[in-house]
């Protein structure tokens, strides 16, 4: 177990280096290694679309299936043939993307805590993907389909489930009836429907789940698969013949590797490997884990029921309930029960003329990842509030907003340079600590999304010449949405927003993952250069004592 825990950080560091390499080619926003889930879903939809077309031409009888697919490839090489090849290659791509997605989530430790649900619901689809993909080969009923069907039956027969061996269905030429072929059709069409249902479960507890990759990336995947389909069309083997054994096969190793594995090791050992592997993955969330950071807590007295935390929580951990201090709040939209209900896409209130009961946020501890994005969304988190102790509506007990204001005030007061700079970063992105110096105070948050944008204005009015905000690369946020919400808040596209009066030339934003500290240094150098060129005093003297 110890060795297991030692391997993961090293592997994660290697994965991050790979991601950074891909950043150079795709840019951070279009990096496929950070969009594996969305790309996988795109491959699924490509499979569905091409499969629907192919099914329209498939003769679903044992005698006619082979001829119908060969005819499709020969008579419609530029549509049927292309889509047939696309169908196969999209399945290969789906499996590769799925494996990479699983690996990435494991490396990031996204199997524990509140993410247990997504991890566990993500495992059954693996079995469904392979069941569906393998069943697809049977439908063609060529030598490869024959081999796969018999190998699958022999593998299933190793389980003590059925009184009669399934493989007996393939003993003689006439054994494969149209009735059995209907079962093949059901496997290849019914299992993907189950898969779709399972994927819906998989993303149930994610708000704003990425179900499509960025447009350019999606187009890149589609174009790549189409070029491959055109350059190397999938060819049929000879038609199935149960009187002989197919011996030399152009096997799809991505989808059918289990057959040679079961042959080489014995079906029972292959079951042990597959079952053991899946059980291990299922068991991961239940193994001893590091202590969880205390989850966010709501302070009823400071929660006005604005629903911003409800809209911004990446894991749907917040629900709205009637406020214990009930009173009517005119003009507030009715609670719809959905994360986006009653709010614009940018998170602003849509307004309304009816009155509803005042609400309050409630945190579901089982779903909360303790990212603090809710605290960054809370309007009560503004440091301008003239209270001695800043208590916000929703906050992280281990890293409260009030403590951040104090740290910021003290840090700013300690800087002696004429043009001090404050840096806000996150614990999972590029380390901001090493940036600290005579003119720089650095603060690392749990997530950048924890930073209320008003802190930027407060820092500038309190004596900072400039503010650098940093966080993980787009798509690389440990808590999914931190940089996205932060960027939208700073751009004024999401509430709470950074006021338009704040001079943007004194603000620098840099997204950098762990290991990309050089990017932060460059951003700091740019900001330092800009504030150095500013004339006169850039802000009032620090007033750290006022709220300390």
């Amino acid at each position, binding site marked *: 177990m110890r060795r297991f825990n030692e391997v993961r950080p090293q592997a994660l560091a290697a994965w991050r280096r790979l991601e950074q390499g891909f950043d150079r080619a795709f840019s951070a926003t279009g990096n496929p290694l950070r969009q594996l889930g969305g790309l996988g879903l795109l491959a699924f939809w490509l499979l569905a679309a091409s499969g629907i077309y192919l099914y329209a031409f498939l003769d679903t009888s044992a005698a006619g299936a082979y001829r119908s697919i060969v005819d499709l490839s020969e008579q419609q090489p530029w549509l049927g043939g292309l889509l047939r090849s696309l169908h196969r290659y999209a399945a290969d791509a789906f499996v*590769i993307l799925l494996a990479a997605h699983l690996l990435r989530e494991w490396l990031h430790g996204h199997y524990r805590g509140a993410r247990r649900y997504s991890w566990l619901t993500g495992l059954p689809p693996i079995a469904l993907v392979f069941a569906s993909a393998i069943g697809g080969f049977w439908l063609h009923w060529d030598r490869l389909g024959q081999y796969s069907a018999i190998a699958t039956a022999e593998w299933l027969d190793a389980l003590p489930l059925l009184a009669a061996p399934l493989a007996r269905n393939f003993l003689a030429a006439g054994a494969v009836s149209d009735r059995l072929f209907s079962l093949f059709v059901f496997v290849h069409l019914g299992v993907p429907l189950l898969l779709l249902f399972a994927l819906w479960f998989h993303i149930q507890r994610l708000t704003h789940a990425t179900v499509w990759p960025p447009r350019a990336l999606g187009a890149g995947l589609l174009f*790549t698969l189409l070029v*491959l389909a055109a350059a190397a069309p999938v060819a049929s083997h000879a038609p199935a013949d149960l009187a002989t*054994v*197919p011996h030399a*096969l152009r096997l799809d190793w991505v989808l059918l590797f289990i057959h040679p594995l079961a042959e080489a090791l014995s079906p029972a050992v292959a079951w042990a490997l597959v079952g053991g592997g899946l059980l291990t993955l299922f068991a991961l969330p239940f193994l001893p884990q590091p202590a969880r950071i205390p989850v966010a807590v709501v302070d009823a007295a400071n929660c006005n029921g604005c629903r911003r935390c409800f809209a911004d929580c990446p894991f749907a951990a917040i629900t709205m309930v009637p406020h214990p201090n009930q009173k009517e709040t005119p003009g507030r939209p009715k609670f719809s029960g959905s994360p986006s209900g009653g709010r614009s896409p940018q998170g602003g209130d849509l307004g309304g003329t009816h009155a509803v009961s005042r609400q309050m946020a409630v945190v579901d501890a089982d779903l909360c990842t303790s990212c603090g994005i809710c605290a960054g969304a809370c309007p009560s988190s503004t440091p301008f509030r003239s209270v001695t102790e800043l208590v916000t509506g929703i906050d992280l007990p281990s890293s409260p907003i009030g403590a951040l204001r104090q740290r910021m005030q003290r840090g700013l007061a300690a800087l002696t340079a004429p043009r001090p700079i404050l840096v806000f970063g996150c614990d999972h992105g590029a380390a901001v600590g090493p940036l600290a110096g005579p003119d720089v105070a650095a603060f690392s948050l749990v997530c950048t999304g924890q930073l209320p944008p008003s802190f930027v204005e407060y820092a500038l009015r309190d004596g900072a010449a400039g503010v650098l905000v940093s966080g993980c690369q787009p798509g690389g946020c440990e808590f999914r949405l931190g940089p996205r919400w932060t960027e939208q808040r700073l751009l004024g596209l999401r509430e709470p927003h950074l006021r338009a009066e704040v001079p*943007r030339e004194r603000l620098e*934003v840099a997204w950098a993952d762990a290991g990309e500290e050089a990017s932060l240094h460059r951003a700091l150098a740019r900001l330092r250069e800009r504030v150095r060129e500013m004339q006169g005093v850039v802000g009032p003297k620090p007033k750290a004592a006022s709220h300390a």
Partner: protein
Amino acid sequence: MPDLKLERPALSASAWIGQVLLYALFALVIGVFSQWPIYQHLAPDLALIKLSFTHTGKPVGECRAQSEAELAKLPPNMRAPMKCPRERSPVSVEVDIGGVTALRRSAAPSGLSRDGASAVYQRLVVPAGEQRIAVRLNDDARRPGFTYRREATVRLAPAQVLVIDFDAEKGGITLE
């Protein structure tokens, strides 16, 4: 729109080339491993014998007449004069190829009461060419030895599948 500058430089020519190369690598991986290396499921000079049957063995014991006292204890609709054991015999089978025993199996009857059929599915890879095959099967635990026998000389072509089955209506052991 506020004038906030984010560090997102446009992609350079080398980045575009890198993208093309990475997409090409992805396509290459899929294109290659979707059909290569060729899998040799069975060597060209071999053939396959599949021994497979589902057959319900004989009852493990004899039927016996129930006494009047036993019948009287039963509900009227269940007073069958003969009582037979429900459990079936396991089916034992031996296959000799070229005079050497290549397979010896005993298949237990299925079902919780062991009253179902016994099933066997076994592959035997043999060299192609002429083979002397002897099959022996016993489906009655009350009788020693074998209740069915079949011997034949067959010529197997490379990759040919020979199925050894059991069909009581065809006289027992079949080779097809």
